[in-house]
């Protein structure tokens, strides 16, 4: 008996209702009521998600799938509103609803003094709705609905302060860049449909499983499809080359950055790759590409993160690099490790962002770390939470990322195609990670205070912001312990739990326990190294030096944006202005419209004269019409008669 599973649609529907209510009627309501609606809907859906998971476990972890109604039926193509719930979905579901709920609570504090309060929560609930659709969907089409929906909400929320040009520009950038990725994703879907004549996960993957895996370096249908889907993933999850929108997305309110651009939406790409793992395991080339891209992104973004001065930018680039880790994990076949890192990352990155938000809140909107410092006394709670997050992401045991990142690197090390290189790069990225995170901590919380008390009155955030922080801090501490037993020869309960989903796909894992211990030791050392370097450089009095040479390049993010501007945007703009506008629009479309108008007028002017007002003339016109009609009706009988042909 599964009372809730049978009505799984309730879980995504609740946030939608909340969004509709607060969006349509919230304008005039006081914040309290809007809080009630938003938190109520999110909290309820969190509770329902828990209940659903309970029933799932009671039901013996049987993968659940139900078709609620037909959405599109065209020929032999069917896309229904079908939801499914298996172990992977359970993880995503809990992460999304849980973290989302916490961030909602946090937002009530953070946004308390902003305009458009109801708008913000309406968007946020809408995002929850689409995200839940995305993770619950049982076919590619419905997943794509969620996919596009979260993109939309991300656009809306990045541009939340739409009066600020930078914000609206960032929104547009995010949207357009995602378009490119989504285009790849759609092409992938089309290819899959053309190959398997359906887009249901179960059917497609069953058929794929029966196929013969393609060889390395072979670009068969499966590889191409996998790569196209991965293009979409790069767009959504900010991987090279489409990562450029994420740093700009920091224009949005910090809770948004935490929820969408750290915890949930950006991980959608990872989710898709993990969801279609069978496809990837049958296309080694695609997996190799995924691994390389992930690894490169992890390194690349980390390097940029080294020198950023904006606290949120640092976190943004760290997000990009962490996502790179996840893709690296998936690429080397350690899907469970990737998902594991996704979960832990959701905890600590949300924690970091929220803490950063708390800092910014305390500094009254200041985001430049060079204007902070010495805050550890002023805002203790935030400081400790931030510290927890930092340690977690840096990968010190027994914090979460230690286990997840360790698992990924371990799998990478054992990867067949020069996995050692991947491992090395990943390790170096890990060192940089711990460096820039501790740099952030030192710049922000230690050293002398670089802001003057007169303008800024530093104060701790209210309860409804700090409580979620603490919860997340605890989570980022204990979040990884499910995998802990693996260290002393026990088994990785998380991988165990996910094994029904990934099962055979799990190629990683072989390799002795001793090697694993060694590698984790190396990882801890690397983290410590990063910590030491950061301590050497920033614990003493530091002031912002002139940025020169390589530092300058890094600070300007390798000039990637300028490159894209020159290579992609420029030509497009030129084409649009000089061809599409000046020739097509003006020359063809407008011309056609105006031509029709003038033609009508001319005809009217000539025909008008038949309207003599004399009834008998009108009668004759009636006759003409009648004659035509009769001629048409009788033609088959008459034409011999008219031409004098006698039967």
């Amino acid at each position: 008996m599964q009372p809730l599973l049978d009505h799984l649609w309730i879980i995504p529907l609740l946030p939608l209702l909340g969004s509709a209510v607060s969006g349509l009627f919230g304008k005039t309501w006081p914040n309290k009521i809007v809080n009630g609606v938003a938190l109520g809907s999110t909290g309820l859906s969190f509770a329902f998600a828990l209940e659903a998971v309970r029933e799932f476990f009671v039901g013996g972890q049987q993968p659940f799938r139900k078709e609620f109604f037909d959405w599109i039926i065209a020929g032999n193509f069917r896309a229904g509103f079908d939801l499914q719930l298996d172990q992977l979905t359970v993880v995503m579901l809990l992460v999304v609803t849980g973290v989302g709920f916490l961030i909602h609570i946090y937002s009530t504090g953070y946004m308390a003094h902003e305009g458009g309060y109801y708008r913000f929560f309406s968007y946020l609930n809408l995002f929850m709705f689409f995200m839940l659709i995305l993770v619950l969907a049982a076919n590619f089409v419905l997943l794509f609905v969620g996919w596009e929906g979260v993109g939309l909400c991300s656009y809306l929320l990045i541009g939340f302060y739409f009066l600020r040009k930078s914000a609206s520009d960032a929104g547009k950038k995010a949207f357009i860049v995602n378009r490119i990725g989504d285009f790849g994703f759609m092409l992938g879907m089309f290819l899959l449909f053309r190959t398997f004549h359906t887009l249901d996960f179960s059917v497609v993957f069953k058929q794929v499983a029966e196929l013969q895996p393609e060889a390395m370096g072979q670009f068969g249908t499966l590889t191409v499809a996998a790569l196209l889907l991965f293009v979409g993933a790069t767009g959504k999850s900010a991987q090279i080359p489409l990562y450029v929108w994420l740093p700009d997305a920091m224009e949005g309110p910090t809770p948004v950055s935490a929820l969408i651009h750290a915890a949930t939406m950006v991980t959608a790409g990872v989710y898709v790759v993990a969801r279609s793992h069978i496809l990837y395991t049958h296309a080694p080339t695609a997996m190799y590409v995924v691994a390389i891209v992930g690894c490169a992104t992890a390194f690349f973004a980390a390097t940029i993160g080294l020198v950023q001065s904006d606290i949120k930018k640092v976190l943004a680039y760290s997000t990009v690099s962490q996502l790179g880790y996840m893709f690296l994990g998936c690429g080397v076949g350690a899907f469970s490790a990737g998902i594991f890192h996704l979960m832990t990352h959701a905890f600590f990155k949300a924690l970091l962002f929220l803490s950063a938000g708390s800092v910014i809140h305390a500094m009254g909107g200041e985001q430049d770390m060079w204007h902070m410092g010495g805050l550890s006394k002023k805002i203790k709670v935030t400081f400790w939470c931030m510290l927890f997050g930092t340690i977690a992401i840096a990968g010190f045991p027994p914090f979460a990322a230690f286990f997840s990142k360790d698992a990924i690197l371990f799998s990478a090390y054992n990867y067949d195609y020069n996995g050692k290189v991947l491992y090395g790069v990943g390790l170096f990225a890990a060192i940089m990670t711990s460096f820039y995170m501790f740099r952030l901590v030192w710049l922000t919380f230690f050293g002398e205070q670089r802001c003057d008390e007169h303008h800024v009155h530093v104060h701790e955030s209210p309860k409804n912001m700090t409580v979620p922080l603490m919860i997340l801090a605890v989570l980022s501490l204990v979040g990884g312990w499910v995998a802990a037993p693996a260290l002393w020869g026990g088994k990785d309960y998380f991988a165990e739990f996910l094994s029904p989903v990934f099962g055979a796909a799990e190629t990683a894992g072989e390799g002795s326990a001793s090697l694993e211990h060694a590698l984790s030791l190396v990882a801890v050392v690397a983290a410590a190294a990063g910590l030491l370097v950061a301590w050497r450089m920033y614990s003493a009095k530091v002031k912002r030096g002139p940025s020169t040479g390589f530092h300058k390049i890094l600070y300007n993010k390798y000039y990637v944006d300028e490159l894209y501007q020159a290579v992609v945007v420029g030509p497009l703009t030129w084409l649009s202005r000089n061809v599409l506008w000046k020739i097509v629009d003006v020359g063809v479309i407008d011309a056609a419209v105006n031509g029709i108008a003038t033609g009508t007028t001319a005809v009217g002017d000539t025909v008008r004269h038949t309207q003599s007002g004399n009834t008998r003339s009108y009668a004759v016109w009636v006759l003409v019409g009648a004659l035509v009609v009769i001629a048409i009706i009788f033609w088959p009988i008459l034409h011999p008669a008219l031409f004098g042909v006698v039967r």
Partner: protein
Amino acid sequence: MVPTNYYLILSAVLFGLGIVAFVFKRNIITIFMAIELMLNAVNLAFVAFSQSWQKPDGEVFVLFVIVVAAAEAAVGLGIIILTARNRRSLNVERVDLLKL
């Protein structure tokens, strides 16, 4: 016996004469009569067909046509009376406000 298409041709001829009257006459009442003439021609065709196919439906239809003609006469003549009152003439060519 009389072949059916004799009746049909007669009805066609009457119909044609009705049309001629319709365009040729100027007196609005006479034009209205022309319409009645056409209706009668059609009725003749109906009856002829129904008798030829031995189906009474055609005659039922004739009854309907007659009823409609009666209603039409009532309203139409009312309109004619009104027009004659306002325009002081029954000549349709003098009633030419129907233009721009």
